[in-house]
C-alpha cells in the first residue's frame, strides 16, 4: 500500500537536496506513464502537422478535382478524398497546423485575461475583488458553449481573408481564437485569485513591500512566479479545451471558414456522409481525439508533478 511507502519517499527526497525543482518535477512526471505517452503522441502530432508541410504543399491541400470526389482510401489518397475531391491526408496536415495554433493562442488569450483579472482581484481585495469575482461568477453561469456558438455565428461570418507568411488564411481563425479565449477565462481567474490570496499573506511579500518594491513588481515578479504551477496545468488543459471547442463550432459550420482547413471543419461536410464515406470523418476525428487525449494526459501528469503536496503517483 502507498501508506507504508510514503514516508520512505519523503525521506528519500529530503536526503537528496542536490535535486533542483525542475529535476524533482521531471522525476515525478516520469512516473506517469500515461503522461509520458501523451507527451510522445503530442510531439508526433506536431511533427506530422508542421513537418508534413515539407512534403505536401498547401496548394495541393486545397486542390479540388471533382472527378476524384468521395474516393475511399487508396494508394494515391491514403486517407481518401472529400466531396469536392480534395486529398484528406494533405488537409489533415494543414488542418492540424491551424487546429494546434488555435488551441495554443486561444489558451494564451484565456491565460492572459485570467491572470489579469485573478491577480487584480486577489491582490487588491476589497471592493475590486467583490466586483470582479461577481462578474466572473456570473460569466461562469452562462454556459461557454452557448456563448461561443452565438458569437461564432455573428462575428466569424463575412470576414476577409488575411495574408501571413505568404499564406492566405480565413479571417475567421482570428475571431475564433478570441471568442474561445474571451469565454474560457473565468475558471482560471478563480484559480489565480485563490493563489494570490494565500501568497500575498506570506512574509516575503511583506518584506518586498517593506523595502518599497512597486506594486506591479510584487504582482508579476514575486507572486505570479510562485503561483505558476496551477496556471501551467490549466493552460495545458485549456489548449485541449480550445482545440475541442474549435472542432465542435467548426463542425457546426459556424467556426473557421474555407479555404482554411482545420480538423474541426473537415468534419462539417463529413456529417452528411457518416454512413457512406467513413474516411471523411474518421481521420480528422481521430486526430482531434488523439491531440485532446494526449494534452489532457499531459496536463494530468503535470498536475501531479508540479503539486508539492502530491508525492505519490
Amino acid at each position: 500500500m502507498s501508506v507504508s511507502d510514503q514516508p520512505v519517499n519523503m525521506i528519500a527526497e529530503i536526503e537528496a537536496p542536490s535535486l533542483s525543482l525542475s529535476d524533482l518535477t521531471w522525476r515525478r512526471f516520469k512516473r506517469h506513464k500515461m503522461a509520458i505517452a501523451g507527451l510522445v503522441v503530442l510531439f508526433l502530432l506536431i511533427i506530422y502537422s508542421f513537418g508534413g508541410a515539407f512534403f505536401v504543399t498547401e496548394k495541393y491541400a486545397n486542390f479540388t478535382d471533382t472527378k476524384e470526389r468521395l474516393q475511399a482510401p487508396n494508394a494515391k489518397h491514403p486517407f481518401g478524398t472529400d466531396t469536392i475531391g480534395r486529398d484528406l491526408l494533405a488537409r489533415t496536415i494543414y488542418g492540424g497546423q491551424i487546429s494546434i495554433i488555435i488551441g495554443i493562442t486561444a489558451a494564451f488569450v484565456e491565460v492572459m485575461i485570467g491572470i489579469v483579472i485573478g491577480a487584480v482581484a486577489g491582490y487588491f481585495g476589497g471592493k475590486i475583488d467583490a466586483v470582479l469575482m461577481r462578474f466572473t461568477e456570473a460569466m461562469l453561469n452562462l454556459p461557454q458553449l452557448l456563448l461561443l456558438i452565438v458569437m461564432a455565428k455573428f462575428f466569424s461570418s463575412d470576414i476577409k481573408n488575411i495574408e501571413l507568411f505568404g499564406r492566405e488564411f480565413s479571417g475567421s481563425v482570428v475571431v475564433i481564437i478570441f471568442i474561445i479565449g474571451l469565454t474560457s477565462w473565468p475558471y482560471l481567474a478563480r484559480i489565480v485569485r485563490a493563489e494570490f490570496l494565500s501568497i500575498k499573506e506570506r512574509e516575503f511579500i511583506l518584506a518586498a513591500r517593506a523595502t518599497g518594491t512597486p506594486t506591479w513588481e510584487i504582482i508579476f515578479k514575486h507572486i505570479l512566479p510562485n503561483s505558476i504551477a496551477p496556471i501551467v496545468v490549466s493552460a495545458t488543459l485549456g489548449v485541449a479545451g480550445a482545440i475541442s471547442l474549435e472542432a465542435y463550432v467548426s463542425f457546426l459550420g459556424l467556426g473557421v471558414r474555407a479555404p482554411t482547413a482545420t480538423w474541426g471543419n473537415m468534419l462539417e461536410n463529413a456529417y452528411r456522409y457518416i454512413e457512406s464515406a467513413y474516411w471523411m470523418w474518421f481521420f480528422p476525428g481521430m486526430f482531434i481525439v488523439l491531440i485532446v487525449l494526449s494534452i489532457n494526459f499531459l496536463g494530468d501528469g503535470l498536475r501531479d508533478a508540479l503539486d508539492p503536496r502530491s508525492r505519490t503517483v
Partner: protein
Amino acid sequence: MDRTRAILRKAAWSVFTILFVIILNFFLFRVLPGDPARAGIRDPRLNKDAIEALRVRFGLDKPVINCFETLNPVKLGDCAINPMETQFFIYVRNLLQGEMGFSYHTNRPVVDILGERLWNTILLIGVGQILSIIFGVAIGVFAAWKARTSLDYGAVAASLVAWSLPTFWLAILLLFWGSTIGLPVAGKATPGMSSYPLLQQWGDIARHMLLPTLTYTIVYMGEYTLIMRSSLLDVLSEDYILTARAKGLNSFQILRDHALKNAMLPLVTVIAINLGFTVAGVIQIESVFSWPGLGNAIYEAVVRRDFPVLQGAFLLIAVTVILANLFADLTYTYLDPRVRVE
C-alpha cells in the same frame, strides 16, 4: 440562526446573478451585428412597409434604452423618454409576466417552443444521468476496491479516455455504429408513429433514445468513476475505517456502513452542478442525433438568427445553472455538517 442567514444570502445572490444575466442577455443580442428584423426576416419579397410593420410588431421600432436608439451601430437618442417605451424595459416587463416574445421564424410564442423542447432534453438528461451515476459509482467503487491492480488501472484509463473524448465525436462514432446495426439515428420518433398504440410509440421513442443516451452515459460515467474512486480511496485511509476493521467488520460491511456514505459526498456536489451545465452540454449530442431538445433549438435559432428564441433559451439555461449551483451548495452543507456556509 447563522445558517438560515447564510442560506438566505446565497439565495439573494442567486437572484442578483439572474438579474445580471437578464441584462447581459438583452444587450448581447442588441450588440450583435445585423438588424434583428432584417436578419430574422430575410425575405426579398418583403417591401419596406412590410418590414416596418414587422419591426413594429416585434417592438424593434422603439429605442433600445434611454439615450440609445440602437447599439450596433451605436446611435445616441433622447434620454428624457419614458423608460417603459424602450425595448429594454418592455423586455423586462414581459419577462415578469412570463412572456418571452415571439419567434421571428415561426411566430410562435417562445415560451411554447422552449417548453416542448425542454421536456425532450429533460428526458434525455434524466435517463442519461441515472445510468451514468449507476455505472459510474459501481465502476468507481470496484476500482477503489481493487486499487493498484491492473483492473483498477484499466478502469482509470478507460474513464480518463471517456471523460476527455470530444462529445460530438463520440456521438458521430456511435451514430456510425448504430447505423450499421439498424438503429434509428435521428429524431425522437418514426414519422407517422402517432397513430400506433401508446406502448409501441414508447418503444419507438426508446429505440431512438438509445444512441443519444449511450453517448451521454459514456461521457459522464467516466467523470463519476474517477471522482468516486478517488473519494473512496481517501475515505478508506481514514482512522474510523481502521477502527471498523479492528471491530471485526468484514470488508463488505465497512464499505456499506462506513465508507460509501462519506465517499458519495463529492459526487453529489458534482452531480448537482452538472445538472445545470448539462442542459447546455447536451447540445453536442442533440445536434448530431437531431434530437428535438433545447440544445438543438438553440442551434437552429442561431442559424436562423432567431433572437427571441435564443434570448429565451439563454435565460432558461442560465437560471437552471444558477439554481443547480444553489442546490449543490445547500445539499453539501446539509450532507456534511462540518462544512460551514461562509
